């Protein structure tokens, strides 16, 4: 079941969030198991399944990153978690510095904490930049339906995933 058609929405990378939410609420009223509590079991199970698809789909579609991954997968691109292990070349320098700071902190050098906080902020900014880039590319794809754009999006997604992992790691250390 394609989430876009389930929601009755055009298959696009840029989605109107309020329109999506409106459809989610409308379809919830239609399919939620509460509406079928006194119906025969067969109908109840169907509603439960439809409701699960609706909720799973809403989670994917409302998040621009998951939405892009979903479309890429549908278009036959390989978007796997394992790819995030390869350091994107443009991040090599940052990762090197981060590892140094982490090493210092683990050896009890509290001064490293400040450089870690600095790195944290830098990564958050990078993530925001990636998000912006994703929005731009999404618009371009929606207009052109050009697979080359999807290829670019895949690159951004991989980089973004890597940055996200860095953010999580730094936050764990700072906590």
């Amino acid at each position, binding site marked *: 079941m394609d989430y876009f058609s389930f929601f009755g929405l055009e298959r696009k990378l840029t989605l109107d969030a309020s329109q999506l939410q409106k459809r989610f609420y409308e379809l919830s009223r239609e399919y939620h*198991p*509460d509406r079928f509590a*006194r119906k025969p079991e067969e109908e109840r199970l169907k509603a439960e399944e439809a409701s699960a698809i609706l*909720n799973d789909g809403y989670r994917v579609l409302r998040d621009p990153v998951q939405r892009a991954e979903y479309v890429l997968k549908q278009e036959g691109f390989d978007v796997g978690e394992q790819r995030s292990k390869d350091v994107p070349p443009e991040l090599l320098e940052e990762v090197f510095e981060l590892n140094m700071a982490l090493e210092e902190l683990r050896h009890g050098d509290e001064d490293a904490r400040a450089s870690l906080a600095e790195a944290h902020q830098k990564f958050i900014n990078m993530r925001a930049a990636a998000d912006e880039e994703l929005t731009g590319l999404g618009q371009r794809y929606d207009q052109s339906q050009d697979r080359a754009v999807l290829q670019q999006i895949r690159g951004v997604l991989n980089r973004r995933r890597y940055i996200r992992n860095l953010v999580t790691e730094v936050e764990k250390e700072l906590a």
Partner: protein
Amino acid sequence: MSQVFDIDFESHRKAPIVGIDLGTTNSLVAFMDLTGPKVIPAPDGGNLVPSVVSYTGGEFVVGTPAQRLLIDSPETTVYSVKRLMGRGIADVKDEVALFPFRIAAGSESVIRLELGEKTLTPPEISAQVLGELKRAAEAFLGETVTQAVITVPAYFNDAQRQATKDAGRIAGLEVLRLVNEPTAAALAYGLDKREDGIVAVYDFGGGTFDISILRLHGGIFEVLATNGDTHLGGDDIDNRLLKIALEDLASEWGEDLSHNGEAVQTLRRAVIQAKEQLSFVPFTNIEFHYRGKSYQREITREVFRNLISDIIDRTLEPCRRCIADAGLTVDQINEVVMVGGSTRIPMVRCAVETLFKAKPHTELNPDEVVALGAAVQAGILSGAVDDKLLLDVTPLSLGIETMGGVVSKLVHRNSTIPASAKEVFTTGVDGQTNVLIHVVQGERELVKDCRSLARFDLTGIDPMPAGAARVEVKFLIDANGILSVSARDLRTGKEHTVEVKPSYGLSEDQVEAMISESIAKAEEDFQERQVREARLEADTILTATEKARANDAWLDLTDDERKRIHDGVNQLLLVYHSDDHHLIRAKIDELNEVTMKLAENMMNTAVRSALKGTHV
């Protein structure tokens, strides 16, 4: 449907669905009438049924009468059993130390309480409370109640939810929905009157703490995030006070009373009273009288505050995490609703007000609001309420064990339910015909830090080279927050059998056995009542016949008629002590038959003497 008015009479005519708040300390039942949700009074006239069950003298005593037995028979009287639902002995070691009742051996996956000669599990004990509420509802509504909505703490895991559902089934109730307590409270408050808003529900009860953040939009109650602690509540506050008092007594009286069930329960009542008073007055006394000795200790709000401030703090961290998980900041929260008896404590209100920068709603009785919300949800299910809809979430992430004891998350916490996830499994060895899947709940990365939910054995895989089998397993968390698993062979398309071994809780067979036992018990009760009633009828007719022998009418009978009455009486006396109410009733009917003439004669005699009387 009515032809003239657009009223759905159909949904009201159908058997009622009640809403039940099965609380740690108190339980309530409510229903939806045409004007809104109403609490149904308990047998003692109040609205609350204390969640206390005693097994004394071979019989169950529930609610207020059982509360009295907490002091007289502490070893066979259970309170706060909700804290034991869906848990194993290792989870509750600390608190059972304070419980006066004994835990039986073999309580690893289900706790077994030894109450005299009976061993009972928490769902069976909760079923007694539910049964009491069911009877109260039936007496009030004048009809049989078989369907219910039961509330659970939002942060309850799969096993705790399943245990609650089992309790309902054992009590003869089909649990149509488990609703999270804070969400139910939001429904009761009817805050959907406002077109669009964000509401936080802070639910601090007797044994559990929950925080939920909801978006309300045109009648839809969408939970954005939830958090909590299923082991944090008013009980913990009581235990603090209790500990102080016990220490005082140890030094003042030179006596350690902590293992004396009767003394501890009496003292517990005293500290609860003091705690409750402190919500209204700046200082009070803990007063305890026992075996002719007296103990008194003044507690000021200041002392109380210091004593419990860390407990209150423990509720604030889940609140902060919940706000973050909802993707919000404190300023975006429009309203805060307070639920649960512990929110009466002024320090709790103050802490909540400070954190959320908003004056919390306290208009509805915090003890009743959850049950009222459950009744609204019952109305939604019956179709009587059709403008509201609840979209709740699963509180904990669901994952499976992978290589090296690492958890692979399938459904993340705060996902709207029903939610599902699919995963394809294959075999690792040639000819392997089954795959064992270990499902866990929790947020940590390692299996050992999460809670084991169940082990699913995927059987019936055709023997093939390793890696050739492809079985798709679907994990579905239903609207009650309970997991089910189904599997399909991707090559053949055929369904696979999945054998479930729950890590905590009762197996399906055990629940079935408990249900049939409770049905058998209900039938036994019914039989006993029938026999009792038949004997009462027999008493009536035997006494009447005996009296009639002194009447003039007796003399008007023929010898044969008198002999037949005599035989009838003897026949009835012979079967009087049998267990067969049919037999007793048959003999009553026979005696009735042969005494007909006598009764007529007596009537005539009475009329004659009455007439005589008027002529004198």
